[in-house]
């Protein structure tokens, strides 16, 4: 039976034009999404490249000024931007801390329109106010723009629904089911074969089209990445075909099947992620960022009033700075940095609460993500692309660490009242983004596959034990 179903199902699909429509639709969507994703990645790379070029130009300017100063020449620059001052270097010649794109970033671009993927931490800037707004809402992070992940997670299920909602009901409605059922076959098995063939063809087409777009449209893609995307997509496609199989056996006419399947799409793709997001926000509400900034401002004001006292305490804690400067020539930035350190220490609990709530939200989402294969698929694709919440969180921590390194590198020069010279330039720290190690998402894909097979088996057994006549005579 399988051979005939396979052969004639393909003939029927080709002659009805379904295969052609499906191929063109998938090709169109995947091509557009890949080009779109690739454009966003190129824009991201270009933004980072421009930022780095700007730093290079600024550095050349700085070195030229330093050369003039070191040769005893007058320079025409504002006093506070002259690069012999360590604070001028720290504030006006910052390094670019960029989150470089990964080879598969085009698959899931995240919300790169909101997030520029690079920051420039300065010596006297506040680490807490660095712009990392994207990771405030972790579930929001899950849904990006019109990229491959969007097509796979949102649109592919709709195509599968249109392709499989009426496998049995169409036969019943056209009148051919009774003739089929009069053959020595189990109608459940026939439906299973028919739907598994459609799954097979959808998968083959998707895999071929993904290979084409990876090879010809995406820059920087690789075979391993393609394999991973195909595995995730296979698991996700299987899940939707398993649902369609059960609905075909359990529900009734074509319109009811379509409504039930679309309802399931709304639940798994839209509702469950939204409910989990809402649950996360309700159980672990994020502290107000505005309140944190206000608190920081009031702490700063308080610190300004007590700057001399704060500086004295700071120098007591850092006798190495006091010893090296017999003149004890202390200016604005000495006081400012000392008070900033204090403000940072005072703000630590607020920032910690912010981070802890974020972690709690992440843990909650991680726990409940198994309720929807759409979340798992999106998360897996984000992880492959290096645009997952974990990636942004790790990048944020790397930037904060780098901001400290940058500040700590220039602070001794400031407190020792030593000038920054061209000899110090090569020693300036630079930021090297270290992407987190790619986690294996094969396991979660395998779990989705097992669950899908389980759903299919349960549906098959229940239908087999139920009243078979309902399938044929309605």
């Amino acid at each position: 039976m399988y051979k005939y179903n396979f052969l004639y199902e393909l003939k029927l699909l080709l002659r009805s034009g379904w295969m052609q429509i499906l191929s063109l639709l998938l090709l169109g969507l995947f091509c557009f999404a890949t080009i779109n994703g690739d454009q966003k990645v190129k824009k991201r790379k270009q933004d980072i490249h421009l930022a780095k070029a700007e730093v290079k130009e600024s550095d050349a300017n700085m070195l030229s000024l330093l050369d003039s100063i070191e040769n005893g020449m007058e320079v025409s620059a504002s006093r506070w931007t002259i690069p012999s001052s360590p604070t001028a270097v720290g504030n006006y010649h910052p390094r670019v801390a960029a989150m470089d794109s990964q080879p598969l970033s085009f698959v899931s671009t995240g919300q790169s329109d909101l997030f520029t993927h690079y920051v420039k931490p300065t010596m006297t800037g506040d680490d807490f106010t660095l712009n990392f707004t994207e990771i405030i809402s972790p579930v929001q992070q899950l849904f990006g723009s019109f990229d491959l992940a969007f097509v796979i997670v949102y649109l592919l299920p709709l195509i599968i629904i249109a392709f499989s909602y009426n496998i049995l009901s169409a036969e019943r409605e056209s009148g051919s089911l009774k003739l089929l059922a009069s053959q020595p076959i189990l109608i459940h098995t026939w439906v299973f074969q028919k739907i598994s063939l459609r799954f097979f063809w959808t998968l083959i087409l998707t895999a071929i089209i993904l290979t084409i777009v990876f090879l010809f449209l995406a820059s920087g893609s690789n075979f391993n990445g393609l394999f991973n995307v195909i595995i995730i997509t296979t698991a996700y496609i299987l899940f939707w075909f398993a649902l369609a199989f059960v609905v075909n056996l359990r529900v009734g006419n074509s319109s009811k099947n379509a409504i039930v399947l679309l309802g399931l799409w709304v639940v798994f793709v839209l509702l469950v992620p939204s409910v989990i997001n809402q649950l996360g926000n309700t159980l672990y509400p994020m502290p107000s960022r505005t309140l944190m900034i206000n608190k920081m401002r009031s702490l700063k004001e308080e610190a300004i009033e007590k700057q001399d006292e704060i500086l004295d305490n700071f120098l007591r804690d850092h006798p190495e700075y006091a010893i090296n400067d017999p003149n004890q020539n202390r200016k604005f930035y000495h006081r400012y940095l000392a008070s900033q350190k204090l403000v940072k220490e005072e703000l630590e609990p607020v920032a910690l609460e912010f981070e802890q709530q974020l972690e709690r939200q992440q843990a909650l989402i991680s726990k409940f993500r198994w309720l929807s294969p759409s979340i798992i698929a999106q998360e897996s694709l984000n992880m492959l692309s290096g645009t997952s919440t974990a990636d942004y969180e790790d990048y944020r921590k790397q930037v904060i660490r780098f901001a400290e390194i940058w500040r700590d590198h220039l602070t001794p020069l400031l407190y020792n009242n030593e000038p920054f010279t061209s000899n110090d330039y090569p020693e300036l720290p630079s930021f090297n983004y270290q992407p987190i190690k790619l986690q294996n998402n094969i396991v979660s894909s395998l779990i989705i596959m097992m669950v899908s097979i389980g759903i299919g088996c349960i549906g098959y057994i229940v239908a087999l034990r139920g009243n078979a006549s309902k399938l044929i005579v309605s």
Partner: protein
Amino acid sequence: MITTDNLTKQYGETIVLNQLNLSIGANEIYCLLGANGAGKTTTINLLLGFIKPTSGSAFINGLCVSEDYIKTKQYLAYIPENLMLYPTLTAVENLKYFSGIGGKNLNKSQSEDFLNEAGLQKNAFNQRISTFSKGMRQKVGISIALAKDAKSLLLDEPTSGLDPKSSNEFGQLLHKLKDNGVSILMATHDLFRAKDTGTHIGIMKNGELRQEYATKDISLPELEQAYLEAMNYKELVS
């Protein structure tokens, strides 16, 4: 051989088939006559195993339909009132598909032989079913039964909507099958066709088999009279 033993089907309080006893041997065409709702199609659905009997049993070639659901279908062919085949496949392809999923592999020449035997014109063999008339589709249905080498054939109003010529051709095909040893049960409204085609006739009303006749023992007017009486159409009888 088609047999039913006190075959009964009940939906809630409504009895749609009441203790039907039938025995249709090889070389017999049994025509079930009756108005809409008499229980003809229910009988066929029970013999096909599409619905389960409330009590009693149906047998095909001595095998109980409820117990040997798949096996009984190996000996059984069925042609519904509106035979719907796959419109985008040709006659040969439809025949090969329905035979194939039933486990019978046909090559092209075998398929053409069966279609030819069923009386389909040669130029229609490789045409898509969407271009076929109802009569032509019924012939493809017969060819599926021939290919299956079915020992029993169930027909549900097969000639309704056919023109007299096609209907006559269909009757001749059934006779050919009967002569080859096939047991045929045909549900119909058509008294003339039943008298012309059948070897036996049963009249059903409200799920019960009211009368049975051997066709050779009854004339068409007598059959008509008996049918109208059985249906209680008194004004028409007078």
